[in-house]
């Protein structure tokens, strides 16, 4: 625990009070015993989600740069950006990621992620696989990574929801497909994500309804309890449903009134710091994640937001659009790492940057098992809109991990320098990623629940192995 003593006292007392007020029996606070062992290196996880497929060769694993010229051969292009040095000797990033490059001495760069093979590419299926560790469809509803963590460890600070998801709207294309994995599945709604589609309006989710004054909110709450106490409860009393309804209403009230809720209020952030983060929705999401981590959030996901053909889903104009994407992420991510380190929280906070798969200009799917192409790519490029990584590539990919016991200033895995730029050393698959996260949190790899009498594990059949080499 990296809180200083005063913080600790303040937080634990608030937490304990909240828990007691909310009537959570002591056994609930201890129920995570089964799944947890005492060797954890992290208490909090922040997932920075590069939605839509981030090309490794144009971000964290640059290859030979070929500038745009009319009439160029598409097959000759491996990277559309120059390489720039990072703080690590001999390790370069793609231009536009200089700030993150400067904090790489605080984390590990993974250059060998291999996405699942599911044939004809559909983003939401790969995202489902990444977030649940199971390939859709499944015969039971699989829980999101964050839900497993919420279930096993519960909230770090009881007034802050254990699983918070920042930045994704579900009203866009493939929204239904996204909903399918933004769920606690069979673990039950209680462990589902607390959704904040727009971080700048995040406060609205944790304060009295818009337009309701604090005094009116108090009055309303008092009225509720007055009426409950007068309602002929005895007759229908001491009920499971009744108790759970009352308890959750109390929890909601406590959250909405708690000082911790201020973490959701970005206007409380000093202007100087706010400006560094304010590169758009994603940057502000990073800021909120930092503020929530400070208040004891357990699992926070911040996404660049998935919308078909937007963001990292570059079916055209890859080069031009990546300039903008990098501007959105570079400053805020670097600042997040620096801030967490400064406050001493980085040691117990695991920050992960990932994407559902990578991209390539030529190869769709895997090099040796090409699947139905979805992007037209002329062999000779005349127009800059065809200059970029537009096809979906699953055989290589980059991830970043910071804090939470992960090695500092380290590089893991390797991809080929020539097309296909696929993983050639220390491949990592999603089962390992999940188990690595659980390992850091001290959640046993055997964690499972019987669903319809069958055991359902955190990773398929409980076989996922953590990558111990990633840990310091």
């Amino acid at each position, binding site marked *: 625990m990296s809180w200083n003593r005063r913080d600790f006292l303040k937080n634990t007392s608030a937490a304990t009070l909240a828990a007691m007020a909310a009537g959570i029996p002591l056994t609930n606070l*201890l129920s*995570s*015993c089964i799944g*947890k*062992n*005492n060797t954890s290196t992290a208490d909090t996880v922040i997932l920075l989600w590069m939605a839509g497929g981030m090309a490794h060769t144009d971000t964290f694993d640059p290859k030979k740069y070929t500038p745009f010229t009319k009439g160029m051969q598409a097959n000759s292009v491996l990277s559309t950006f120059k390489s720039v040095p990072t703080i690590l000797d001999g390790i370069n990033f793609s231009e536009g990621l200089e700030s993150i490059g400067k904090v790489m001495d605080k984390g590990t760069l993974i250059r060998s992620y291999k996405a699942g093979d*599911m044939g*004809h*590419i*559909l983003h939401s*299926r790969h995202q489902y696989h990444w977030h649940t560790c199971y*390939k*859709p*469809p499944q*015969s*039971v*509803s699989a829980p999101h990574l964050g839900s497993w963590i919420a279930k096993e460890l519960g909230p770090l600070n009881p007034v802050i929801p254990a699983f918070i998801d920042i930045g994704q709207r579900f009203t866009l294309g*493939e929204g*239904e*497909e996204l*909903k*399918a994995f933004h*769920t606690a599945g069979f673990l039950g*709604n*209680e462990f*589902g994500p607390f959704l904040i589609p727009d971080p700048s309006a995040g406060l*609205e989710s*944790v*304060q009295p*309804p*818009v337009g*309701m004054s604090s005094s009116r909110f108090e*009055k*309303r709450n008092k*009225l*509720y309890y007055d*009426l409950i106490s*007068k*309602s002929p409860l005895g*007759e*229908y009393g*001491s*009920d*499971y*449903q*009744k*108790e*759970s*309804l009352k308890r*959750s*209403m109390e*929890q*909601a*009230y406590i*959250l*909405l009134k708690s000082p911790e809720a201020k973490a959701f209020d970005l206007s409380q952030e000093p202007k100087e710091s706010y400006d560094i983060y304010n590169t758009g929705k994603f940057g502000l999401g990073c800021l909120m994640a930092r503020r929530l981590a400070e208040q004891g959030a357990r699992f926070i996901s911040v996404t660049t937001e998935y919308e078909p053909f937007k963001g990292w889903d570059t079916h055209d104009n890859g080069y031009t659009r990546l300039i903008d994407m990098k501007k959105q992420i570079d400053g805020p991510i670097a600042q997040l790492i620096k801030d967490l380190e400064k406050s001493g929280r980085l040691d117990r906070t695991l920050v992960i940057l990932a994407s559902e798969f990578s991209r390539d200009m030529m190869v769709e799917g895997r090099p040796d098992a090409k*699947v139905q192409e979805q992007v037209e790519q002329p062999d000779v490029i005349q127009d800059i809109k065809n200059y970029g990584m537009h096809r979906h590539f699953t055989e290589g990919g980059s991830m970043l991990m910071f804090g939470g016991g992960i090695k500092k200033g380290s590089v893991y895995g390797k991809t080929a320098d020539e097309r296909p730029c696929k993983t050639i050393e220390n491949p990592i698959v999603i089962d390992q990623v999940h188990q690595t996260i659980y390992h850091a949190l001290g959640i046993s790899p055997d964690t499972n629940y019987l669903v*319809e*009498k*069958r055991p359902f594990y955190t990773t398929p059949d409980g076989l996922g192995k953590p990558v111990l080499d990633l840990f310091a």
Partner: protein
Amino acid sequence: MLLQYLAFWLWDFLGHLHPLAVHFPVALLLFAAILELFTLKNFNSKLRHGIDALIIAGSLAGIISAVLGWLLYKNGDYSGNVLTLHQWIGFTTAALGVLTLISLYQIRKKDKFKQIIVYRGLLFFTAIGVSVAGHFGANLTHGGDFLTSTLPWSKDHKETKPTQKFDFVAFKAKAADTTKLDKKQEVELSTEVRAILAHNCYKCHGAEKVKGDLRLDGKHVAFKGGENGPVIIPGKPEESELYKRISLPADHEDIMPSKGGKLSQKDIDIVRFWIAKGAPWPEDGSKATVFRVAKLEPRNPVLPATSNNLTNPVDLWTNDYFKKNRISWPALVDDKIYLRRIYLDIIGLLPTPADQDAFSKDTRPNKRALWVKKLLSLDNDYALHWLSFWNDALRNDYSGTGYITGGRFNITDWLFKSLKANKPYDQFVKELISPTEQSKGFVEGIKWRGVVNSSQRTEMQAAQNVSQVFLGLNLKCASCHNSFISDLKLEDAYAFANIFADTTLEINRCDKPIGKFVDARMLWKELGTIDAKASVAEKRKQLAENLVRPEDGRLYRTIVNRVWAQLMGRGLVEPVDIMDNEPWSQDLLDWMAFNFVAKKADLKELIYQIATSNTYQLPSIGFKEVAMVNNPNYKFKGMVRKRMSAEQFTDVVSSVITPVFVDSNLRYNPFAEAIKGKLQAKPTFIRASLVANNGFLTALGRPNRETVATSRESQANLLQALELTNGVMFNNVLKTGAERWKANYPNTDVLIKEIYLKTLGREPAENEFKVAKQALGKSPDVDAIQDLFWAIVLLPEFQIIY
């Protein structure tokens, strides 16, 4: 080298003394604290010297225990959170003990009497510490459920049922003289033993997990033994590792099962007896199942004689059950509760004050039955309510995965019309399995783009969903490998799935093709045959015809149980998807299923039968934990309290306060034709079953229908409470409602009475009226009215169906 070795075993040995040593500080310090209580008035009482001695001994013993505990931790294989907790509490307590001793010393030797309060505080904390540390320590050795598992409502409560039909004492008496059992006895005994092995050992010594290289799930492998050789020596139980290990003391390190607690003495005796008799394992025995399998064929038990003026057959069976279980009939619920129940259960809405008034003024002796009939005749409302139940079960929704790539089909139009027309259930099932274009969404499943796991191809989805929904049978395990929870084999699942397949599917075991194929066939050969060569359409048709025949007691028991569970809050069989489990009354289930078929599989008739029974009119039963409802030893005493579903809640708000949805939310319009023909007035609000899922409905428990869902969570949670407390949608609805009500009810007193009548079905009590009136003030503004609405619809009294 030697020293190191010595050191190792010595530490180990000392560590093992920890569980023994800890009893000293616990006893000594606790006793000291108790005695201290008697000296509160007079510190230097006669007890003082004794207490001093206890504290000296106790705190020293505490330190020793802590050190030994540390050694045990270093050399033992304990880990986990309980350990951490135990450790830290233990160390802290040891330290507290020392501090207690020091402060005592200060008082006794240096006369610092001011410290008495400090000393006593320390002592009592120490006493609490040893107790808590001791508790967690005990959890580590005996397991956290050591105590609670003996409680009847615990989910770990040991059921004594599996062996109840096997009368071991009688069996032993009969077989004692004979050295060799006869064939029948061999089968009987070995089946029993294999049941014991299956329930207790397969988990670690089966096909999936082979601990110690030992498998006990087959004759050959069981006799082959494990890494240390054979474990069963026929005729010699004392030399058989299997018997030795299960008969060890419960706290022994080598006891088997290592997890889940020692076997009952009876089970141990049976295993011993079996080995002593030569450990027979006849091949015939292997056919006998170790899992409970429900009978397939229908059964028409003879109704018990009428008594207590009961006429409804459901009540005759309940009466029979009550007699056997020594339960007496309580008084039935009053009119108000009854009316509320049937409204919510049959049409998903609350009775209006006018309805209530009419009902209470109705003097006909059979008015309850007549009102049930009346509600069942409200075709639209009935269909709109039950639509949600069927949408969950049939995985039907307006939006969701699959639609985006044309891999899913909506069946709402067919479903609504079928419910409205009260299609006989056999017809209903046939049209889903052997579908038309309108009803094909269920068996066609959800097809995702790309490659899917072989156990999730649409043909297998159809096999899984048909068996789950219509037969209460879990085929999901067997569609990947032979099931461990039933006798279903991988081959059975593929044979069943092939009914839905164009070409025979290659069998995949855990997603790996094994080069085997199997012809399409029924899961029960008694239910008829399938022409494996026929087209998919033809095969589906044969399946449909086979499934709905009256001989298929399973199909009808399953639906009867589902409807029962909807009305009564718990099925006769639970979970409702595992129909092989034992019902609390086999007779009642069998009779209802048989009678259902006899009454032409009429679902409304079935609901009528249940809703008009005295059994349904019993006072509702609350429960504190879900485990109490799912407990196999559950005793029926009346309807289990339910919570309003997302749709019921929303619809009631719509009807009482203001419509929650607007026309543009409508995803299926059942009244389109009627409105066009001006046959019917437009409904006053849009029912929740007709709109796409949204954040609000999801939070209240509407499932995303990617997979079959046959029951809903009734537990509230934080995310739900937040949605209700500050969700934009709900807040706006209440606000609009408040504006409407303000205009309609200028008189505050009337307004308060009306909202109570319309939501809770009663007038406010005097003190409630006072509170509400105070909140509203003399001339209430919209805000105040809105807040009153909010408080009322969040009352448990409103949300619970009791």
